[in-house]
């Protein structure tokens, strides 16, 4: 474990305790206002106003990816990854352009999940419904895992005891599970309001602190200008962020994140189109600024304070040739994500005394909030997919509304425990297949992006066929899986250098969409003719 200064005293414990207690209060309040129906449990009665909608959409979009992953990636690869912030306005536009149409159709037809709309449009009550549910699960599981992992990382760095990682991951998972189970969408949305405000504040505050610890903006950028050339240019330190990869990742990550089931259900839950219109503007303007002027500066400051190169300009590498962070930040290639917490612990209390400790504690709680707000939305959406799209349709179609909501709660409990076990087992595996937050996050988004072609067709073009949609999604999922880090674990290096070459050209999700669209169009044309 890296050495960090325990300069924060008990302040983080107190602030964290107050925050967690508040979440449980929201859970209970949501339960008191709820009715025992699926529509209420999953969509809060389709009556969310603009503030709740804007903040729950933001909080679901921003996760530990934003507060730990993004600064970690800038710390590793340099300023090039700051350009990834430009995916946020694209996502903002998608909130209005896609969200308003999804909401209108969803309200008219009483849809609850994405699969309801897609299965209805293409007339595929079994195959497409199950496929869409599968895509949702493939997105939600890694995303929940990432958030729980972030809770573990945070706890390990804050408390530094022997099992701090496991305890932190478990506390985050169990409290999140508890308030979703109690209050459903209403609790999730209300807690997202608090968490959304915390994470917007935390992101900006983190950037401000990074600049402050280096003596203000002038000295900050003077120091940044002296970073190694690779840190100030594309494709970055590791050579990963070629402009084409950055472009396809930005484009598909933004839209893919907006059509994943949890966001789709937030569109259904919005009270009006005006709500989504205003949410889209807030999203695009505020969140991009949080990235550019907030967390991205943390990564750059990290490169100055904890250099990746030694006095001779050589990078520290592990046995496999991966670039390593500074020893004060971590010892393995997956430890770049720690840079924000290390900076907060080591510099803020030193600089600002107890006020610095309070600021640092607030940012740490914001990281926790970012992780929990995404985990809760995804667990809640996954519960809807498995209960409404599988249990209600094929196992117990005659189940009462009460039974359905209780089955949904059971799904949340099981999914939380499975995700927690995955995180802990992976942590103790020598290869740690979960790796860095950004890499796993982009893979989850790549799976969700496979709903994009049929969503565009369903909302705008309306020329696709049922078989085209089914085989398009299957092709996209297969392509993403073959290009994922999980394929070599199962099949070894069976595809030789082809996979490597493809991954160096475009983002994995883009390749999936390419295959998906090709098959979707060809089969749709063929089936329409015959």
């Amino acid at each position, binding site marked *: 474990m890296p050495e960090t200064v325990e300069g924060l005293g008990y302040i983080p414990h107190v602030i964290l305790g107050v925050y967690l207690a508040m979440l449980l209060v929201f859970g209970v309040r949501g339960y008191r206002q709820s009715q025992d129906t699926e529509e209420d449990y999953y969509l809060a009665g389709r009556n969310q106003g603009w503030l709740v909608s804007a903040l729950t959409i933001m909080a679901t979009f921003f996760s530990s990816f934003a507060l730990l992953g993004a600064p970690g990636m800038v710390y590793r690869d340099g*300023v*090039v990854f*700051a*350009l*990834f*912030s*430009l*995916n946020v*306005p*694209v996502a*903002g*536009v998608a909130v*209005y352009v896609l969200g*308003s*149409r999804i909401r*209108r159709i969803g309200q008219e037809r009483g849809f609850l999940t994405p699969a309801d709309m897609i299965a209805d449009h293409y007339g595929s009550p079994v195959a497409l419904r199950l496929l869409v549910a599968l895509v949702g699960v493939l997105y939600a599981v890694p995303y929940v895992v990432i958030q729980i992992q972030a809770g573990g990382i945070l706890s390990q760095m804050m408390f530094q005891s022997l099992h701090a990682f496991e305890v932190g991951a478990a506390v985050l998972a169990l409290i999140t599970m508890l308030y979703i189970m109690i209050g459903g969408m209403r609790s999730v949305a209300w807690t997202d309001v608090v968490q959304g405000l915390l994470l917007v504040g935390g992101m900006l505050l983190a950037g401000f602190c990074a600049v402050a610890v280096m003596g203000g903006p*002038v000295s900050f*950028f*003077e120091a*940044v*200008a002296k970073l*190694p*050339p*690779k840190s*100030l*240019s*594309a494709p970055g330190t590791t050579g990963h962020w070629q*402009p*084409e990869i*950055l*472009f396809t990742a*930005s*484009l598909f990550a933004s839209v893919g994140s907006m059509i994943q089931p949890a966001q789709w259900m937030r569109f259904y839950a919005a009270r*009006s*189109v*005006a709500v989504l*219109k205003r949410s*889209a*503007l807030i999203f*695009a*303007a505020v969140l*991009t600024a949080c990235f*550019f002027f907030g967390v*991205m500066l943390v990564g*750059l400051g990290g490169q100055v304070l904890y250099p990746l190169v030694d006095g001779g300009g050589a990078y520290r590498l592990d046995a496999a040739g991966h670039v390593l962070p500074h020893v004060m930040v971590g010892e393995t290639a997956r430890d770049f994500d720690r840079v924000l917490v290390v900076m907060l612990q080591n510099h803020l209390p030193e600089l600002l005394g107890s006020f610095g400790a309070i600021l640092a504690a607030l940012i740490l709680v914001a990281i926790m909030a970012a992780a929990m707000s995404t985990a809760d939305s995804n667990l809640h959406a996954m519960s809807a997919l498995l209960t409404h799209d599988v249990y209600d349709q094929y196992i117990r179609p005659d189940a009462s509304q009460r039974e359905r909501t209780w089955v949904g709660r059971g799904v949340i409990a099981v999914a939380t425990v499975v995700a927690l076990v995955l995180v802990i087992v992976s942590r103790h595996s020598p290869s740690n297949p979960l790796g860095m937050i950004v890499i796993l996050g982009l893979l989850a988004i790549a799976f969700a992006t496979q709903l994009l072609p049929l969503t565009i067709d369903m909302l705008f073009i309306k020329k696709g066929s049922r078989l085209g949609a089914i085989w398009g999604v299957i092709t996209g999922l297969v392509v993403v899986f073959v290009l994922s880090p999980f394929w070599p674990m199962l099949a070894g290096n069976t595809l030789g250098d082809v996979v490597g070459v493809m991954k160096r050209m475009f983002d994995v999700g883009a390749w999936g969409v390419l295959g998906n669209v090709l098959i979707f169009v060809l089969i749709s044309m063929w089936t329409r003719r015959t």
Partner: protein
Amino acid sequence: MNRKTLSIVLVCVFLTAVTMGSGPGIRLINPDPTDPHAVFTIWGLPKIYVWGLLWYVVQLGAILIAYFKLWKDDA
């Protein structure tokens, strides 16, 4: 300018901003890290960072115009 023309213009501007800001457009200003004479900063800030900010402003401008002129409250 009528709504249709404005929509087309804004879509073109927005897509250009995405392509230039976080896409192949980066190559226009990207300094070569192996070139000892390469200039990495402009006005004291990393060139790539300034480039990103510029296209963020363009994206936001297009969204603001769409918000006030095109997007409806009851679509």
